[in-house]
């Protein structure tokens, strides 16, 4: 029956558009001068900060220390990370049990079904990023078998680490230069801040169903 | 941006049906102001309506018949000046569309090129200068939706008002908001229309203006009719009539 529905719908559509069709050309995106690395960092920082993200520019070799300082200030209890990723491994290597005020590290090692309850009790998660978009101020997340999807969604605080050399000017550029069309992951994401809503009287409020806080460490 | 011709020797005047029936003095004032600038104004007596009432009500065939008649009447290559943004919009933007792919389309396109809203014509073609002889007063301006969005002449109308040195123009807060006239809308959906004109009146009252000026008689009839119904002492005037009186010291 479903096949019949398919054939009937497609039949109507084919008849509707006919054989002779003149397709309009899509005008190219406007030519804009490329932004410098510093301009891209600044634009991303400004836009994401405006959306309540906590953006920190840190030297490449000092980010773990900065992370520790941020976490100590926030007083979180557990942080989930992805073993096998550069970010996850760096964090795991730098953690020592009982270090003053740091959350306990929890590796995301098994399928979610076996530890869903624990996952929903964890209050921080750390992930890498596949870059960012300066134009609109958004991180690109590209979860895979080593870095699961829920780290950036379920915990109340999401910490994302971004390589400043991987900021694209626009999403158009990211799609093109990143070769997205050749292979999309299970779930690619743009994230521009902590979750928010304006559904009640258009009052903007942060922290609805996704993370209440987004911390971005930009490695310069 | 529209390219404007130099000042012509002759120009047609399309009076519009509403000006003809209810605001003839505004029509005469508009004609006289053009004559004052040295243009020989031609008023073909066979003219009637642009066709918009039928067109907007779902009767394009009837609109087409009336439009074709106007195209026959205004057949010489003079500019056609219209004291209404809405009727001008109909003739300039919709005439070509209503003839589809019929042989009349090319003619409609050529016709539409000659159509000008009155204040647009005065500002861009006649480059008119005005000497205000009236007492100081404050006014506000209501633009019809089609003057603003189809003809894009809201700035021209306000430029004319600003040429009157004793007149202070206070703009409406929601200048681009429809007054609720909408032709047959006002009688098919009178409740919504009333809600819209009430908000418009509130906006007008907040300007503190003694008079409301407009360039479209449909809107004026709606707003002034509703203000009078509520005994609000703000008067409504077509811009042409207002200017004519100001430069004669009335």
């Amino acid at each position, binding site marked *: 029956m479903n096949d019949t529905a398919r054939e009937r*719908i497609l039949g109507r559509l084919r008849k*509707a558009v006919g054989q002779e069709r003149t*397709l309009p050309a*899509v005008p190219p*995106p406007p030519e804009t001068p490329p932004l410098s690395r510093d301009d891209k960092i600044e634009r991303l920082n400004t836009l994401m900060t405006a959306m309540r993200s906590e953006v920190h520019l840190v030297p490449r070799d000092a980010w773990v220390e900065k992370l520790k300082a941020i976490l100590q200030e926030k007083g979180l209890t557990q942080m989930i990370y992805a073993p096998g990723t550069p970010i996850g491994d760096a964090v795991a290597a730098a953690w020592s049990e009982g270090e003053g005020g740091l959350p306990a590290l929890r590796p*995301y090692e098994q399928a979610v079904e076996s530890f*869903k309850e624990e996952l929903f009790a964890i209050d921080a998660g750390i992930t890498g990023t596949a870059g960012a978009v300066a134009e609109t101020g958004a991180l690109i997340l590209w*979860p895979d*078998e080593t870095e699961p999807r*829920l780290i950036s*969604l379920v915990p109340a605080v999401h910490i994302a680490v971004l390589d400043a050399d991987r900021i694209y000017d626009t999403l158009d550029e990211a*799609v*093109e230069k990143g070769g*997205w*069309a050749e292979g999309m992951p*299970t779930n*690619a*994401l743009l*994230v*521009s801040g902590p979750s*928010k809503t*304006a*559904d*009640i009287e*258009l009052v903007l*409020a942060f922290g*609805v*169903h*996704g993370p209440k806080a987004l911390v971005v460490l930009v490695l310069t | 941006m529209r390219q404007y011709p130099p000042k012509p020797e002759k120009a047609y005047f399309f*009076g519009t049906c509403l000006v*003809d*029936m209810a605001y*003839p*003095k505004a*029509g005469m004032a508009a*004609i006289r102001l053009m004559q004052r600038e040295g243009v020989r104004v*031609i*008023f073909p007596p066979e003219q*009637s309506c642009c*066709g918009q009432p*039928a067109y907007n*009500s*779902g*009767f394009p065939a009837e609109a087409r018949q009336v439009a074709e*008649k106007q195209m026959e009447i205004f057949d*010489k290559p003079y500019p056609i000046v219209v004291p209404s943004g809405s009727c001008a919009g109909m003739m300039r933007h919709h005439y070509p*569309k209503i003839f589809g792919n019929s042989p009349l389309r090319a003619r409609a396109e050529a016709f539409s090129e000659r159509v000008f809203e009155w204040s647009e014509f005065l500002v861009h073609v006649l480059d008119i200068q005005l000497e205000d002889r009236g007492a100081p007063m404050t006014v506000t301006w209501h633009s019809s*939706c089609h003057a603003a969005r189809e003809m894009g002449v809201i700035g021209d109308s306000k430029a004319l008002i600003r040429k009157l040195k004793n007149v202070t123009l206070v703009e409406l807060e929601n200048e681009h908001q*429809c007054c*609720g006239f909408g032709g*047959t*809308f006002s*009688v098919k959906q*009178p*409740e919504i229309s*009333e*809600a*819209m004109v009430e908000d418009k009146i509130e906006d007008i009252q907040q300007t503190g203006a003694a008079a409301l000026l407009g360039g479209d008689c449909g809107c004026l009839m709606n707003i002034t*009719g*509703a203000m009078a119904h509520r005994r609000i002492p703000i008067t409504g005037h077509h811009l042409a009539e207002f200017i004519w009186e100001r430069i004669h010291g009335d």
Partner: protein
Amino acid sequence: METKDTKRVEKPFDFKANVIKALGNRQLRSNLKFAMGSMTAKRKALFSDTAAFEALRARGNAIRRRALLQLPELLEQLERKCTENGITVHWAETTDAANEIVLGILRDHGATRVVKGKSMVSEEMHLNRFLGDHGIESLETDLGEFIIQLDGETPSHIIVPAIHKNKQEIARTFHEKLPDTPYTEVVEELNAIARKTLRKKFYEGEVGLSGVNMAVAETGTLCLVENEGNGRMCTTVPPVHIAVMGIEKVVEKLSDVPPLLRLLTGSATGQLVTTYVNMITSPRKPGEKDGPREVHLILLDNGRSTILPDEKLRQTLQCIRCGTCLNHCPVYTRIGGHAYGFVYPGPIGKILTPQMEGLDRTSAIPTASTLCNACEEVCPVQIPIPDLIRRLRNESYDPDGSVCGHGVKRNLAETAVWKAWALVNRHRALNAVGTRMAGIFGPMLPRIGPLAEWTRSRNRPEFARKSLHDMAREEGISDE
């Protein structure tokens, strides 16, 4: 938690009664006036560069037109790509068929708890009611949708569904409908209540259901935009994800997504980008640790294929459901969404509803427009909504029309009136008599028909004794 079902007894659609009821609600009017003013201002600030906006929407228009012209091929490509990626594709001609497909998937998994992201297509399907009738809890998780579901209502706006309510009304609803919930008008606290209530539901949800903002044929990717994170929850936490999508929402390429996204989020809420743009291309792959193990895509026609043949009306299907035409509509901002009586309100509803539901039931809806062009001016994909409203008005009278229910008003006296009008306006002598009669008899006309409607809130028009024609002749204005 107690949720009411949407109204079960469906009264015949009476637009006028709805309008009068809506206009009588002062609270509604003030809520709408504030909200629409705020949303239009935010959009205006974002698209302040007019030339850039015009260039962007020209791209959006071309992308959507190209997609519609290739709709059958793109849907087949989408189906092929999705299937290769492991997504199961279903086709539904009607909303009933789509509901049955959803139910079938739920039964295959013995599921009784569905968590839902915001989806206008699921509103077309009246899915919550249907699932409720089959003993399945279908819970809205978008905050606005959650609020109206608690009150047994339907969305009044396609982007901000509870925009007709103020915080006091929402506070009362939460207090009365959610267990152990104290009354609070603090927006942050109301949000926290929703977060706490729904978090458990995401955790327990057996199936997640979502809409689709656009689907990419080239890669088989489903794009969803949102701010709250509930959409990601629904599409990531439960073991099964069902996406429902109108067949017109497909685009050719991934490179079509960035410009459409800018137009969508900018037009809808004045945002450069939403908090989340969620691009789903497959179910959980071997080795991946989370995400649904099954993803189903339901392609719903529900009348769309009958809109496609007509070159003009086809433009209706370009719509990307940003809702900005509602925000800018002087009629919507006075009466709100519920008065329109069907799923899609405002300008887009005025052209979409009659084509989906038939003019025989809905011919009043296209009359509710002043043709002010505000919608056309802001539409991110350049749909000529006023022209299409005129077309549907014409279809209401035209016995040879093409839209379902065309000609429903053909026998009204109005048809004769306009024929006479055309005659009078082509013959000067008749026209002169008419104008003179208006001048003489206008003040004496009884207040019936249109004049009665006009004079409800306005003084009667004053017709001049002497027409402009008379004056021009007397003053010697040249007639060549």
